């Protein structure tokens, strides 16, 4: 961690240490720009994806208020996007939430029909962090560019799993995080295409082209840049490996556990995501039982959330609350091995069976199909 100790310079200072920090910062900016096919000066460092989303949506909307007051997002956006647009609604903006199909995918024709002369911003995530469905981002980009509307995409779920290219996909604002690609926490990026007019949310000494004042988190930036480098080298092979595990897991679960279903898209899904649901059991109890066997997973069940609300993503794919409660999400990653997948298949079927025996909702005779 030299950037927290010996190399402690402030990039804004004129002394030698400061110069070195500036040099490192600009190298990192170049590396991260290359990762998404952007120019280095289009990369703004932030404190993380949440801040990037805030700057993109609030910063763009407030700056372009005179052009219009309408924003379009999809129902399956990350909760931070949903909460930011609620804030914008309170401040006079109008928001359309585009519904998705049963796989969680948007329809670009439907999106086009929601555009009004007042529309200033479209925000559609590259892929769902929850059910793994990948969105037709290039089509959205083409539509937005043609209509002269700014297009923001939260790419956190997709980074490291899909090659990102802001030029190919015609994205104007793009959110990246560091910890989702195994970099340090507390650092993120907002890509701001040249010519985009965005207000800063944090005002001060004018760092990051004035879009994000405050001394840069040099150690965090170096860490994120390193994570990006590793990701770029490993991605192709890694995606292949994870997709193999994912397919094996999904195939086996659906084949071996009766009354189980896949959530999200059957093919257009992230390589690291297997999301399933089981009838008549509840997700938190599944997770507890899996943890006893050393397996970590997540659920869209309300019973494991802070708000006691089921996942909005699952609900917007058309699931009933009780179905969302019975969902289970496996996220595969760098440290997942084939043995882990086999372990899940060893412990999951008996756990589901045991919990179903406890459940008043499960009738054995209904499983004859």
């Amino acid at each position, binding site marked *: 961690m030299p950037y927290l100790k010996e190399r402690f310079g402030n990039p804004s200072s004129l002394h030698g240490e400061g110069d070195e920090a500036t040099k490192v910062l600009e190298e990192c900016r170049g590396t991260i720009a290359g990762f998404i096919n952007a120019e280095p000066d289009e990369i703004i460092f932030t404190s993380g994806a949440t801040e990037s989303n805030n700057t993109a949506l609030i910063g763009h909307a407030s700056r372009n208020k005179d052009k219009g007051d309408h924003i379009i997002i999809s*129902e399956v956006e990350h909760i931070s996007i949903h909460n930011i647009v609620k804030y914008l609604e309170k401040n006079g903006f109008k928001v*359309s939430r585009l*519904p*998705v*199909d*049963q796989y969680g995918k948007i329809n670009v024709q*439907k999106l086009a*029909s*929601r555009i009004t002369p007042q529309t200033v911003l479209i925000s559609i995530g590259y892929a769902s962090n929850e059910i793994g469905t990948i969105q037709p981002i290039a089509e959205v980009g083409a539509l937005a560019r043609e209509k002269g509307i700014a297009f923001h995409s939260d790419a956190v779920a997709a980074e490291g799993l899909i090659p990102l290219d802001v030029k190919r996909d015609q994205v104007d604002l793009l959110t990246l995080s560091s910890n989702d690609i195994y970099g340090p926490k507390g650092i993120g990026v907002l890509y701001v295409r040249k010519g985009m007019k965005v207000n800063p949310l944090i005002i001060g000494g004018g760092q990051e082209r004035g879009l994000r004042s405050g001394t840069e988190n040099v150690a965090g930036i170096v860490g994120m840049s390193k994570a990006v480098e590793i990701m770029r080298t490993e991605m192709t092979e890694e995606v292949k490996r994870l997709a193999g595990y994912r397919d094996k897991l999904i195939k086996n679960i659906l084949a071996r556990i009766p009354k189980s279903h896949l959530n999200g898209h059957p093919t257009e899904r992230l390589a690291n995501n297997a999301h399933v649901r089981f009838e*008549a*059991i*509840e*997700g*938190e*109890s599944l*997770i*507890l*039982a899996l*943890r*006893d066997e050393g397996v970590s997973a997540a659920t869209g*069940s*309300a*019973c*494991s959330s*802070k708000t*006691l609300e*089921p996942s909005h993503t699952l*609900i*917007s*794919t*058309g699931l*009933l*609350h*009780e179905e969302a*409660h019975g969902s289970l999400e496996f996220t595969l990653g760098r440290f997942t091995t084939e043995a882990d997948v086999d372990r899940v298949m060893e412990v999951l079927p008996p756990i589901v069976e045991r919990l179903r*025996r*406890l*459940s*008043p*909702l499960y*009738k054995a*005779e*209904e499983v*004859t*199909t």
Partner: protein
Amino acid sequence: MKSTQYSEKVLDHFRNPRNVGTLEGENVAWGEVGNPVCGDLMKMYIKVDNEKIADIKFQTFGCGSAIATSSMITEMVKGKTLDEALKVNRQDVADALEGLPPIKMHCSNLAADALHEAIKNYRNQTKGKVPLPVVRGAKAPAKEIIGEKEFLKKGVYYTVDDLSLFKDKRVMMLDRGKKSLEIALELTKHTGRVIVVTPSKTIPADAELATKLRQSDVKVIYESEPLEIRGSEEVEKVLVHDLNEDEEYELFVDAVIIVK
């Protein structure tokens, strides 16, 4: 849910639940609380002998603490008189489990309520006051749903000639008798998502059709009625009224079929 939020005692009852199952026969009553919509449903069965709980069993759909509280209370009241058992409340169950996470105190600590319900039902039975099951108006003339006309042919259909139209769509079929249920079954050949909404408590069909429906991928929502069809240009969702819980929620669908 943070793993550390559950006490060892809760985890023990979750891992090894006591008295799981159902009871039948003389002097048996049961109580049910909760709703799958909110994520918890408990059924508590008691067998009473000389005003004492001779046996007790439970079935629970729910989270870790829902299962643990059900299991705990069966141990606490077995052998107790009905009056003693009625005094056991939610707090007692939580205390016996060495505490529950604050957020779980209300939503999944329903075991005492289920037990009290079972005792109440037992006493009503012995007094001969068996409440008649409420049959809700499946036969009542179907009233128009808000938005039904507005979205006609834009996701709302009164007749269906070509089922392939619904390929991969999320279809809601309103229960309008046998014909509507048969179409629902047929639709599963074209789409994985067919939801039947019915005001009745069980599948409103003869035994053969009911069995077919149960074994199919048709999802039946009981004791419910659609209140309003919503969308922008086309059908996007339906506001559903859960008659049992008297709650309303939105369900995302692509099409609504109302056989006239």
